C-alpha cells in the first residue's frame, strides 16, 4: 500500500516537473521585458498618486521591439487602473510570428499584437484579429494616410492601425553631387533623377566622373521602389501576377550590374554599411564611395545616421525616381481577447491619438518621463524625436519644430519631416499581400544568380517560379516572361 502511494506521489512529482518545464518558458521570458506594475505586487510599482491596491485590469501586449513599450507606459500613465503586461519576442527568424500562432486558442493569447509590414497582411487576411472598424472615424479626424489604413484592411474590414507612415526617400551625398552633377541642391538633383531613365543617365555621369564612385550600394535597394509602382499585387484571384514593373526591375538591375553603377555589396552586409561612411575599400585596394541610398523614414535614424561616421552634414534627401514605402509597424487586437474593449482603447491610443502621436514624434517620451509613471522602467527606454507618424494632421502641426534640429543639421539644412510629408500621400497600400515575403525572397535569390551571370534570364524566371510553386502549391503560376 505504502509503495503504491509512493509511486503515485512520485508520478505526480514527475508530471508536475514536466508541466513546470513546459510552462516555465513564458513567465521567464516575460519578466525582463515586463513593464513593471505586475499583478502580484499590489501596485507598489505604480505612479505615486494611485494607491488603489484593488484589481487592476491587465492588458497583454506583444511586440517584436521595445518601441511600443514606451507607449504602453504612457498609456498606463493616463489609465492608472490598467496594468499593461508587455512582452517582447524577437522576430529575426520568425520566432515572433510563430509564437503568436502558437498562442491562439490558449490562455496565453495576447490582447494586443504588433505586426510588422512583412507579415501584417497575413494576419489581416486571417480570422484571428478583431474587427476594429469602430475606430475608423478617428482616422478621418486625424487624416491618417490612406495607405496606412489600407494595409490594415482586408475585404472592407479594418483590423490593424499604425502610428507610423513609412514613405521611402532617396538620400544622396552632397559632395559627390556637387563634384559630378554640378549641384547639391535637393530640387535640382530631384529634377535630374526624376525617373528611372534619367536616374540611369546620372549613374553614367557619376561613373564617368570618377570610376571609384558608385551610384548605389546595390540595385536591390530599388526592388521595393519598383514593386511599389506595380499596377497589381503579386496574387490576384489565386494566380500569381508578374507585373511589367517586375520585368522592368530585372532589366534595370542587370544594367546597373553590367555597367558597374552599383558597389555590389549586398544590402545589410558590411560593405553596404561601409559605403555610408566612406570606409569601403575595393578588392583592388582603391577606396570607393557610394553616392546614394534608398531608405524609408525609419532608415534615417536607425540605419543611415548610426553608420554614417563623420559624413554628417554631407547628406540630402529627396523623393528620388519612384515613390515607395517600406516597412512599418501595425497594431491589432486579437479577436479572442477577453478584454477587447480595453484592447481597442489601447490600439486607439497607440495609433489614433493626436496627443500620443505628437509626443511620440517630438521626443516627449524621455526616460525621465517614463520613469515618473513607472520607476521600474529600464534606463535606455525612451523615444527620440523624429519618427514619422501616420496622421497628416499631426505631421503638419509638428513639421516646423524640426527646423534646426540635429537631424536638420545632419541633412545639411533640410527638414526631413517636411520631405517625408510630401512623399507620404503618394504611397499605395493596396499592393501588399500576405505572401509577398516568400515570393520576393525567392525572386531575389534567382535574380542574384542572373545578375552574377551564373544563369540566363529564362532560367532565372523558371527557377523563381519553381520555388514559388513549391511554396504555394495551390497558386496558379503563369508562363514565365520572355
Amino acid at each position, binding site marked *: 500500500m505504502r509503495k503504491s502511494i509512493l509511486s503515485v506521489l512520485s508520478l505526480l512529482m*514527475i508530471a508536475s516537473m514536466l508541466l513546470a518545464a513546459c510552462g516555465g518558458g513564458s513567465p521567464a521570458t516575460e519578466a525582463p521585458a515586463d513593464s513593471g506594475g505586475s499583478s502580484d505586487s499590489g501596485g507598489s510599482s505604480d505612479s505615486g498618486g494611485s494607491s488603489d491596491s484593488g484589481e487592476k485590469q491587465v492588458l497583454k501586449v506583444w511586440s517584436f521591439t521595445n518601441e511600443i513599450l514606451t507607449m504602453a507606459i504612457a498609456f498606463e500613465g493616463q489609465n492608472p487602473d490598467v496594468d499593461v503586461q508587455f512582452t517582447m519576442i524577437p522576430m529575426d527568424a520568425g520566432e515572433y510570428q510563430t509564437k503568436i500562432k502558437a498562442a491562439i486558442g490558449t490562455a496565453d493569447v495576447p490582447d494586443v499584437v504588433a505586426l510588422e509590414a512583412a507579415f501584417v497582411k497575413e494576419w489581416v487576411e486571417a480570422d484571428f484579429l478583431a474587427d476594429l472598424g469602430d475606430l475608423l472615424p478617428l482616422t478621418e479626424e486625424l487624416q491618417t494616410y490612406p495607405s496606412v489604413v489600407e494595409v490594415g484592411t482586408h475585404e472592407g474590414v479594418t483590423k490593424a492601425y499604425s502610428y507610423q507612415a513609412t514613405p521611402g526617400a532617396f538620400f544622396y551625398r552632397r559632395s559627390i553631387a556637387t563634384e559630378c552633377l554640378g549641384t547639391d541642391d535637393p530640387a535640382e538633383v530631384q529634377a535630374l533623377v526624376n525617373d528611372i531613365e534619367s536616374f540611369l543617365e546620372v549613374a553614367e555621369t557619376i561613373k564617368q566622373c570618377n570610376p571609384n564612385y558608385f551610384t548605389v550600394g546595390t540595385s536591390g535597394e530599388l526592388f521595393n521602389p519598383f514593386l511599389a509602382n506595380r499596377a497589381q499585387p503579386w496574387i490576384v484571384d489565386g494566380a500569381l501576377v508578374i507585373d511589367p514593373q517586375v520585368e522592368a526591375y530585372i532589366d534595370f538591375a542587370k544594367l546597373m550590374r553590367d555597367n558597374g553603377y552599383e558597389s*555590389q555589396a549586398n544590402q545589410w*552586409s558590411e560593405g553596404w554599411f561601409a559605403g555610408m561612411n566612406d570606409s569601403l*575599400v575595393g*578588392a583592388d585596394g582603391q577606396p570607393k564611395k557610394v553616392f546614394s541610398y534608398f531608405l524609408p523614414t525609419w532608415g534615417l535614424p536607425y540605419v543611415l545616421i548610426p553608420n554614417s561616421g563623420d559624413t554628417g552634414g554631407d547628406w540630402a534627401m529627396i523623393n528620388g525616381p519612384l515613390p515607395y514605402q517600406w516597412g512599418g509597424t501595425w497594431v491589432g487586437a486579437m479577436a479572442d481577447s477577453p478584454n477587447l474593449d480595453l484592447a481597442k482603447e489601447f490600439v486607439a491610443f497607440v495609433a489614433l491619438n493626436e496627443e500620443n502621436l505628437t509626443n511620440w514624434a517630438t521626443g516627449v517620451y524621455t526616460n525621465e518621463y517614463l520613469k515618473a509613471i513607472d520607476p521600474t522602467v529600464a534606463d535606455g527606454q525612451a523615444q527620440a524625436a523624429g519618427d514619422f507618424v501616420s496622421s497628416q494632421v499631426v505631421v503638419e502641426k509638428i513639421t516646423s519644430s524640426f527646423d534646426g534640429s540635429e537631424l536638420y543639421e545632419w541633412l545639411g539644412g533640410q527638414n526631413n519631416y517636411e520631405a517625408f510629408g510630401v512623399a507620404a500621400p503618394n504611397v499605395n497600400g493596396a499592393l501588399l499581400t500576405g505572401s509577398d515575403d516568400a515570393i520576393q*525572397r525567392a525572386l531575389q535569390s534567382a535574380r542574384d544568380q542572373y545578375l552574377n551571370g551564373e544563369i540566363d534570364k529564362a532560367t532565372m524566371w523558371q*527557377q523563381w517560379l519553381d520555388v514559388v510553386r513549391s511554396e504555394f502549391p495551390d497558386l496558379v503560376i503563369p508562363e514565365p516572361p520572355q
Partner: protein
Amino acid sequence: MKFTKINRNYYGYFFIAPFIIAFLVFGLYPLYNTLSLSLTDYTLMTRKGEYIGLQNFTVLFADQLFLKAIGNTWLIWLLNFIPQIGVALLLSAWFTNNRLKIKGVGIWRAIFYLPNLLIPVVIAALFNSFFSFYGPINQFMVRFGYQAEAVHYLQNVEITRAVVIFIQWWMWFGQTIIIVMAGMTSIPVHLYEAAMVDGASAAQMFRRITLPLLKPILIFIFVTSLVGGMQMFDIPYLLTDGRGAPSNSIMTNNILMYMKFASSRGHIGAASAVAVLTFIMTTICALGIFFVLRDKDDTVTNKPKRSWFKKSETK
C-alpha cells in the same frame, strides 16, 4: 521470497519511469503527431485541418525542390562524412600508436574539438563575411594577383557547397576523433604486442585488429552522423539567404521543412510530410548500416571463427 522478488522488479520500473515518461511525451507522441499531421492540410493560420490522405506526399514527390533537397542533403553529408571519418581514423591511429608516442595528445584533441563549441550562427556569419564581395578572401586574391577582380563566391554553386561541406567537416571531425580514440584505447594492448611479435606491419595491424574491434564504435558514428546529416539545418540556413541560395544548391530537407512551416500560412501538414519522409529515409539507411556492418561471425555460428581476435585468444 517470491513476493519480494517481484517488488524488486517493480522498483526497477520505478527507476526507469522518468525516462519512459519523458520518451513518451517528448519522443513518441511528437512522432505520432507528426505522422497524423502529415495526412492533413492543417495550417497555423486556419486552425482547421482536413484529412487529405497522402496528398501531401504526392505533392512533395512532384516537387522538384524536394527531390533537389534530398539530393543536396545526401551530397553534403557524404562529402563531409567521408573525409571526416578518414581523418579521424588516421589521426586517432597516430595518437594512440605506441611506437609514435605523440606528445600533447590531449591538447591536440582539444584543439580539434574546439570548432564544435562555437555557435553555428557565429561560424556561418564569419564565413559569410569571409567570402563576401568586399571580404578578406577577395581582398587577398585580388591584391596578390590570383584573381583579376572581386567575385561573389557565394553565388557560385560549387564554392558554396564546398564551404558548407568544409564547415561541417571542420566542426565535427574533432568530435569523431574523440569517439574513435576512446574506441581505440579500449582495444587490449596485448593484441598489438602479439601482432608485433608475429611481424605484422602497422597497416596490417590497423586493418586486422583496429578496424574489426572498432566496428561497434564505427556503427555508432555512422548512425549518429547520418541522423545529424539528414537533419542538417543551421549552417546552410545561415550561410546564405536561408532558402538554399545560390540556385537552391544548399537547400536541405530541414530547410525545406522549415520553409513550409514558416510560409505565410504556416503549412504544418506539408512540413510534417517532409519530416516523415526524412524520418523514413533515415531509418531505412540506419538499418542498412546495421545490416552491412553487422557482426557476421555471430550470425554464422557453425563456421570456425577466423578473426584475429579469436586467433590471438587461442594462442
